[in-house]
């Protein structure tokens, strides 16, 4: 039998039929839905008179467009309210499990899936959201889909997909102090570019990846899409099992032992071949920050913004436009520049370890007067834990404003918007123009760097501050 990669093993086990000259009919184990990309799918089902084939394989939560204050009250914004109500109505009608606002497991869809133990090794998982790649951290094939595909999954539990090419990215060695998973992934994206992963599914491997916690692995897989890759995954191991054991949806007793044995086989064969491979040395990675308008535009925090002459033709025009939007000059460092906001949250860095990291570093300090600091837990569970561990008190004392769970300023669909022209250093995943509000300027960084920025009021290297 030909040697297979981890990706091959999971993919091939889920193909029901390969269409000649076309895609595979691909079976989906778990489907997550939220209020923004699902209503039109349900509407179309209704129009065609089709039921949901396996309602128990779909789980819903409202996250993208919910307010992060007063979640116990009626949503003020009429359109947002409509979307959330539609989601409730559709879940009721079709018998889909809903983790509604205010309930124990409400939160960002990619935070609650793992938290509940719904996300498991070997699964295929989709959601109408590109950061579905997060779930790959468990050794699952997980990727984002469009609304037409949401409709397909609801109707038939399948989508039609061509198998992606395979890439492996190995990070070997140990990262230095002050360097976290976010820095690793921002470094990789800066090396490969915002489109360098297009057409591929990535397996992350190497000693630096293996030594990461599950939450850190989620941060890595989460941003696979920012290289254009469909998704990324990491082979399950003892860390994965320790995280999953005992979670509400994880197998129990004998079934757990059996599952573990099966999951251990989920690894790339030694002689399996990838279409592309990269190896990075963890020692080269430093705290990273983005200066431009796509996640590939990242630099080591002390470095200068690249010179315009490094680009040519239409690339140069796009580069200049991007710097104009950000108000930065080529050839200049950005460290030391004042900023206005910090945002800790999102499915990239809105989990308990992230909040712990920030709290640990701001403990006993105050945020700088020029900074507005928002912290938005990824889920109710994270919020509860942060309270129990006393992190909320530390953060509030430091001048941070704690909000209720949701996507919040990551995409600024609700009221949590960064004003035009203002700078925000954010733990989220996208620095596109206007992503955090019309005209807002976003710099992506790790929770640690964000903590350093919050207390100094300027773009700062956490290794020099703490």
């Amino acid at each position, binding site marked *: 039998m030909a040697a297979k990669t981890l990706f091959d093993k999971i993919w091939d086990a889920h193909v029901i039929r390969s269409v*000649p*000259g076309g895609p595979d009919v691909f079976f989906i184990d778990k489907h997550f839905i939220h209020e923004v990309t699902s209503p*039109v799918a349900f509407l179309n089902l209704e129009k065609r008179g089709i039921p949901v084939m396996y309602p128990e394989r779909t789980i819903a939560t409202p996250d993208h467009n919910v307010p992060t204050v007063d979640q116990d009250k009626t949503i003020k914004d009429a359109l947002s309210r409509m979307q959330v109500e539609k989601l409730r109505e559709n879940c009721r009608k079709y018998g889909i499990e809903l983790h509604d606002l205010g309930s124990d497991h409400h939160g960002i869809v990619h935070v609650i899936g793992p938290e509940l133990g719904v996300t498991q090794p070997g699964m295929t998982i989709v959601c109408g*959201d590109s950061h579905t790649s997060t779930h790959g951290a468990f050794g699952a094939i997980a990727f984002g889909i*469009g609304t037409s595909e949401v409709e397909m999954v609801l109707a038939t539990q399948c989508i*039609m997909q061509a198998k992606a090419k395979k890439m492996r990215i190995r990070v070997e060695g140990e990262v230095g102090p002050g360097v976290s998973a976010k820095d690793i992934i921002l470094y990789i994206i800066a090396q490969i570019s915002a489109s360098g992963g*297009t057409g591929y599914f990535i397996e992350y491997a190497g000693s630096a990846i293996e030594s990461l916690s599950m939450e850190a692995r989620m941060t890595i897989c989460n941003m696979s899409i920012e290289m254009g890759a469909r998704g990324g995954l990491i082979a399950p191991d003892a860390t994965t099992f320790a995280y999953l054991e005992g979670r509400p949806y994880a197998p129990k007793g004998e079934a757990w032992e059996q599952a573990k044995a099966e999951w251990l086989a989920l690894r790339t064969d030694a002689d399996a071949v990838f279409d592309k491979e990269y190896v990075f040395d963890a020692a080269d990675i430093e705290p990273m920050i983005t200066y431009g308008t796509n996640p590939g535009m990242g630099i080591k925090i002390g470095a200068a913004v690249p010179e315009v002459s490094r680009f040519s033709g239409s690339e140069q025009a796009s580069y200049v436009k991007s710097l104009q939007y950000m108000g930065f000059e080529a050839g200049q460092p950005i460290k030391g520049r004042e900023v206005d906001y910090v945002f800790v949250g999102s499915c990239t860095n809105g989990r308990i370890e992230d909040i712990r990291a920030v709290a640990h570093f701001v403990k006993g300090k105050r945020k700088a007067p020029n900074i507005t600091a928002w912290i938005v837990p990824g889920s109710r569970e994270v919020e509860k834990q942060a309270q129990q561990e006393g992190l909320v008190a530390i953060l509030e004392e430091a001048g941070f404003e704690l909000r209720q769970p949701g996507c919040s300023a990551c995409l600024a669909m609700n009221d949590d918007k960064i004003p035009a022209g203002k700078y925000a250093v954010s733990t989220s995943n996208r620095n596109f123009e206007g992503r955090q509000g019309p005209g807002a300027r976003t710099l992506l960084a790790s929770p640690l760097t964000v903590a350093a920025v919050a207390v100094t009021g300027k773009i700062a290297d956490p290794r020099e501050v703490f």
Partner: protein
Amino acid sequence: MAYDKFTQLRSTMVPLPAENVDTDQIIPARFLKATERKGFGDNLFRDWRYHADGSPKEDFVLNDATYSGKVLVAGKNFGSGSSREHAVWALYDYGFRCVVSSFFADIFKNNCLNIGVLPVTVSVEFADKLFAAVAADPQAEVEIDLEAQIIRLLTDGSEEAFEINSYKKENMKNGFDDIDYLLHMQEEIRAFEQQR
């Protein structure tokens, strides 16, 4: 039939040479609040097209009456970022039936094919040729022949072949979507699910 059939298209072009145009630019998140697939065209490229007060930005190509047509010619890495199908709905609703670029983001390309907007990947040279042609003459036309998988610039007759898998091609030509196909497979899907 799930959407309009696509066989041949002859049209003038709208040029948008910017690179890495992400779906947040095509349609910003704050306009994703609808629960029906209607009216997204009005907010296509919203923040490039309008000032904060709603007045049009004169220098943006969609506000320049010189350019029109059903074909958008875009820069490299078009449609990156969010999986929102709303981006394609907005392009469709505005009147585009085909997007030409030297490089598309994956999910965006899939979304296009799923609702009947044809993504045509051309070489960087051919894309540059189209940009040059439309700069020289905004009335320059292209012809896209799906059956032959050829895109042709009518001003000088130059052409290039493009790829599309044969399954998607049939779908586009007939206006079928994947659900039509999958619904015929329900028995097979049930049998598969039972073993899981």
